[in-house]
């Protein structure tokens, strides 16, 4: 079977697995699953909306396999049901609103961290064993082992509350209506700086370590030695011979990182009250809005799978050996 077709089938299977978990979880919980799922909403909802909710979760009459198929088909037609909290707003609408903010914030943070992390990793590897290398790699490991909650809260405390340099919440000045005006964009940028810095702090370390290790492995390669023997300048060898090749595997981790963008930044968004997907998920958890929570899992899984697939495609393009192999 061709490589890419096999991967597509695998991703399809993974997606169905995530959907299956979504389907069976409420049924595995002790007690009446329907009652559990809708107990918080039952008192506020009119009976007919409760029926609609049950329908979107496949709680229809009939045997389990039939319920399961109903559920799967509704998902594959893009129907994630309706929110309990904001009934009758469809989950897809709710997620669509938040998507833009998250993609903007975390997308930027991921790209900045990728560039910065790869650069630091390159420098650390080039001067491996030096004091600079030790400082860079140890602090990279530290940055990845400090919880994002901690980084976000400390940043908010120091720069938001104590120094008052940045706003302490939301994506733009609530007095401004979203529009294509300079004032609005300035407000958005000002609100994004602190969450952006926090996310970069969390993400950069991982890229630094990956790049450093790839690069160290490559520095012993014949063509690098050859480049030096030719008398090329240090910088040229470092950037055009070693770093360019070391970057290839890092690009795949960038794609995967971009795939997690949708799930990304949950804690950061919650701490900075940023209206993205993560915060939507958090609000849904607080309200026990199960359709939204489950819809998020599916959307995030789909994003992960798509970006993994892009990595696969790029591998096939970059490494022709994969094309033939079974």
């Amino acid at each position, binding site marked *: 079977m061709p490589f890419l077709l096999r991967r597509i089938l695998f991703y399809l299977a993974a997606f169905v697995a995530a959907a299956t978990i979504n389907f069976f979880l409420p049924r595995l919980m002790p007690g009446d699953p329907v009652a559990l799922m809708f107990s918080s909403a039952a008192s506020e909802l009119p009976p007919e909306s409760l029926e609609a909710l049950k329908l979107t979760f496949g709680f229809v009459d009939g045997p389990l396999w039939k319920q399961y198929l109903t559920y799967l088909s509704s998902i594959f037609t893009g129907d994630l049901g309706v929110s309990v909290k904001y009934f009758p707003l469809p989950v897809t609408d709710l997620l669509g609103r938040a998507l833009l903010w998250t993609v903007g914030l975390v997308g930027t943070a991921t790209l900045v961290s990728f560039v910065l992390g790869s650069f630091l990793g390159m420098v650390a590897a080039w001067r491996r064993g030096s004091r600079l290398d030790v400082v860079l790699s140890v602090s990279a490991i530290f940055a990845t082992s400090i919880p994002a909650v901690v980084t976000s809260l400390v940043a908010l405390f120091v720069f938001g509350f104590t120094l008052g340099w940045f706003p302490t919440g939301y994506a733009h000045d609530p007095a401004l209506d979203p529009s294509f005006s300079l004032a609005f964009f300035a407000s958005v940028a000002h609100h994004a700086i602190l969450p952006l810095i926090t996310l970069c702090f*969390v993400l950069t370390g991982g890229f630094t370590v990956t790049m450093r290790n790839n690069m160290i492995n490559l520095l012993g390669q014949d063509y690098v030695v050859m480049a030096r023997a030719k008398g090329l300048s240090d910088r040229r060898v470092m950037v055009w011979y070693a770093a360019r090749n070391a970057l290839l595997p890092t690009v795949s981790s960038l794609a995967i990182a971009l795939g997690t963008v949708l799930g990304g930044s949950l*804690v950061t968004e919650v701490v900075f009250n940023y209206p993205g997907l993560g915060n939507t998920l958090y609000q849904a958890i607080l309200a026990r809005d199960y359709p939204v929570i489950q819809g998020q899992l599916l959307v995030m899984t789909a994003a992960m799978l798509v970006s993994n697939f892009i990595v696969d495609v790029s591998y096939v393009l970059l490494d022709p050996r994969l094309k033939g192999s079974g």
Partner: protein
Amino acid sequence: MGQLWIGLRRNRKAFIGLAIVLLILLVALAAPLLTEYNPAARTGRPHQPPSAEHILGTTRLGQDVWARLIYGAQTSLAVGFAAGLLITVVGTTLGIVAGYRGGKTDEVISFFTNMVLVVPNLPLLLVIASFVGQAGPMVIALILGLTSWAWGARVTRAETLSVKQRDFVKAAEMMGEPQWRIMAFEILPNVFSIVGINFIGSVIFAVITEATLEFLGLGDPNVISWGTMLYNAQKASALSVGAWWDILAPCLALALLGIGLSLLNFAVDEIANPRLRTGGRLARWTSLVKSGEGRL
């Protein structure tokens, strides 16, 4: 093991990391001796700044922050080590069995492992935890253990594949040793450094993720742990009313434990693979940590 111990003593990173982790462990165990206050009881006025009486101040409900911090350390460490152990046991077992047996067994386990790897970990945890309802610490440890073993399985499998080609494994096979014996006594000791790094990395991941889940309100709010401290402080708007001690205390504790454990992990990696020196396998573990971190 003896070599590992000598290496640990010579390595400064290992020494500092071990000292930090042991210090936190010791403080957690000696909690009743280190404070006179009951961590759950109201012992002062709400949101008192640090003073001689309450060295880290009080919470919104008038509980002593220092008492909550050191009793909370018990929970965070217990969940971290329990979940870390579970993740390591499941991951190591599946990895060795898949790598050694090969064939259909390998295909099934690898398929399953890869599937778990592509389903985003944190949203999955959130969905499960939200259905469980206010999850106690050990329930969280169990959920973490059952959903986060895939990285360990993959890395251990890769290592097993190379170990099983070695002569002593072939020799054991010729002598007709049963498969389980080869896996347990020939393969396992030779992938031990991977297992160690897996374990410490998983502990870091579990501590961080438990705190995150509780901070998001998915834990049992009556349990005393660093995560619920953050949750309660955030709920009481501790930062905006200026009660920084309420929120910074658990923050610093979490950061300290994270740094201690990662120094230890760093050192184990260096000792196990002297050629790599500050690099190598640990890189794979940062991605495990990141799956609980950057992706949050």
